[in-house]
């Protein structure tokens, strides 16, 4: 019975307006349900912030009111050393860069901070597990939050206020991040420690905003390459804030592509959603008969060869300069999916890459990108390897990659490097040459030299080989052997069908035309004549 009475009195107290002593000793009646929060004002006074953003100074301290409200207004909770918040007014919870939380309210009141100390208690009162995110956890949304994204003008969109052309123009000029001046950028996207503009955050937010605009139908899809986004929205910002610029534009552009790719890798959007065009559209194709086999080259000098091989064996082919861009992989994977159908079926990738760590990473990334798009069973067959080179070739064409000195001290080997570049690349190159868990390594005597030195240790150099010196015929021959091992049907049955000449359609068409254009004879007669022609 006690708890019921308590519950009744709790509920009644929420309804009751309470009188407070205000400044200058005057009495003033409050409806506590209209108060958003209480915060400190000056010594001996606190201020009551109301729904419309107005404030009223009142005598007392936060501790006093906290004690007082425990009975008469249980909806108030302490969230900060100097904040007492009406939890019924809370609309949303945000997060600050320091790991604390922010309560947001409707109307004119400023957000109120929630410290980590008070957060669990407040969460309990709000009937949620914690303030970080909503259970069950949405890891994708969390990752997006870690980018520090902000959405501008969402309220107007949700209310449907942005419809006509003029409204859209007004909306974009008001909320477009690329139109912000330095001061606003500093306010909206400050760096944690310095308070200067956080460039990565600005670029990410612009990408995020453009995507939102596309979703809301404010702007049409892009028709050019990904660069069109760069020129339309980002060049503007860098021009206006020259101190944000990197030493040269290509660095900025590379960073921008990386940020864009982060979103794609998280699965938030695809390149196709934006309508971007693939830069390597003309250097790829899907095989008619064996789309599951693909020949890939990393050099434009091999374009004609890959194209010819793709045509000859009716398999897929792809050439990119350097690493496979995500956008190319996306479009290629989409076309492959259409043709192959089953995602679990085996894909055979025949890669023509240099014999060096770069070539290895390109082949690996190729696999990674297609795995990302759903192909689970991919096998890589490197076409170019040392067996294609003669000893004299290697002697003549090998190019030094990295060198180091190694000295034995007891059981340990000490490595020393001449430059910081060598030190950075050492692990990767060492793994490439001597092998690791999933890579058997090169381990060839012809690609390593050792100059012994007693005092400083041996000088070891490893070498790589380029594809270019090998003749295309040799590559084609080796490719054929590999292909027939992996895909025995490629030469015999299907290709025989493929190589047969197609029936002479043009002849048929001319015959049909003559029948149709004849002056004499009724329609039914013509139809029968056509039927006969087709059945023959």
């Amino acid at each position, binding site marked *: 019975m006690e708890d019921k009475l308590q519950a009744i009195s709790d509920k009644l107290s929420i309804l009751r307006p309470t009188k407070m002593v205000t400044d200058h000793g005057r009495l003033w009646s409050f409806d506590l349900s209209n108060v958003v929060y209480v915060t400190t004002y000056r010594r001996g006074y606190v201020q009551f912030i109301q729904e419309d953003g107005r404030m009223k100074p009142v005598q007392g301290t936060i501790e006093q009111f906290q004690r007082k409200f425990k009975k008469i207004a249980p909806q108030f909770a302490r969230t900060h050393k100097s904040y007492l918040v009406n*939890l019924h007014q809370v609309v*949303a*919870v*945000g997060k600050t860069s320091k790991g604390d939380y922010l309560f947001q309210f409707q109307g004119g009141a400023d957000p109120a901070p929630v410290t980590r100390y008070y957060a669990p208690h407040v969460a309990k009162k709000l*009937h949620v597990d914690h303030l970080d995110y*909503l259970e069950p956890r949405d890891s994708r949304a969390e990752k*997006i*939050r870690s980018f520090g994204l902000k959405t501008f003008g969402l309220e107007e969109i949700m209310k449907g206020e942005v419809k006509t052309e003029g409204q859209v123009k007004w909306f974009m000029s008001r909320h477009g991040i690329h139109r912000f001046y330095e001061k606003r950028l500093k306010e909206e996207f400050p760096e944690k420690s310095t308070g200067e503009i956080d460039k990565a955050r600005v670029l990410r937010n612009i990408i995020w905003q453009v995507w939102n605009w596309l979703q809301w139908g404010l702007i049409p899809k892009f028709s050019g390459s990904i660069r069109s986004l760069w020129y339309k929205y980002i060049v503007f910002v860098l021009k206006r804030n020259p101190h944000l610029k990197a030493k040269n534009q290509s660095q900025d552009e590379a960073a921008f592509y990386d940020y864009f790719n982060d979103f794609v890798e998280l699965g938030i959007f695809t390149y196709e959603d934006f309508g971007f065009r693939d830069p390597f559209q003309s250097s790829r194709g899907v095989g008619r008969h064996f789309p599951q086999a693909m020949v890939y080259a990393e050099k434009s000098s091999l374009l004609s060869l890959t194209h010819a091989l793709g045509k000859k064996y009716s398999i897929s082919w792809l050439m990119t300069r350097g690493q496979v861009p995500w956008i190319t992989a996306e479009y290629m994977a989409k076309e492959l999916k259409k043709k192959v159908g089953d995602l679990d079926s085996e894909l055979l990738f025949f890669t023509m890459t240099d014999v060096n760590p770069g070539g290895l990473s390109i082949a690996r990334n190729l696999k990674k990108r297609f795995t990302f798009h759903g192909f689970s069973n991919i096998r890589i067959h490197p076409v170019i390897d040392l067996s294609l080179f003669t000893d004299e070739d290697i002697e003549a064409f090998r190019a030094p990659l990295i060198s180091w000195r190694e000295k034995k001290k007891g059981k340990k080997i000490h490595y020393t490097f001449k430059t910081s570049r060598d030190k950075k690349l050492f692990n990767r190159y060492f793994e490439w040459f001597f092998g690791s868990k999933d890579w058997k390594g090169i381990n060839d005597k012809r690609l390593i030299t050792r100059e012994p030195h007693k005092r400083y240790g041996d000088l070891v150099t490893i070498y790589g080989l380029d594809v270019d010196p090998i003749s295309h015929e040799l590559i084609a021959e080796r490719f054929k052997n590999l292909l027939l091992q992996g895909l025995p049907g490629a030469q015999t049955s299907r290709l025989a069908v493929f190589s047969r000449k197609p029936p002479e359609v043009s002849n048929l068409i001319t015959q049909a035309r003559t029948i149709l254009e004849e002056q004499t004879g009724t329609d039914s007669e013509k139809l029968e004549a056509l039927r006969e022609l087709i059945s023959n």
Partner: protein
Amino acid sequence: MSKAIQAKLDKILHKLSWLIPDVFALPANSPDMSAGIHFLPVHEICYITTDHKNEHYRLLYKMQDGLEFFSNHQLQDVEKKLSSNPRFMRSQKSYMINLYQIRRMEYSSARDLYFAKDTNPVSNAVSLSYLDEFKRRFEDANK
């Protein structure tokens, strides 16, 4: 004696909870993917239903101003939270409705309901198995 008082207290509590619910706001995902939790005042919710449009299951909260919010909760859990709130009732396998937000009602195999400003009805918002309870609760709400 005490039993009578208990019953009376229950009645008072019930009447009071029309005005002041135990759970004042329900958490939902913020429409802004970059923000955290969003709180929806329960009295402004028209109905809660399940939504399969976006491939994965989620709950849809329709508000009186026409806005839609989503969360990944189960409808049962939300029902448990709102069990002491007389405004809300489960009216179908996948619907929870706010009796105070009903503007218009039409007869179908069970009942079609118009909420707040909606111009289109929610067809079969009340199914046959819940119809009796709905009639009772609806009368209670409009006393």
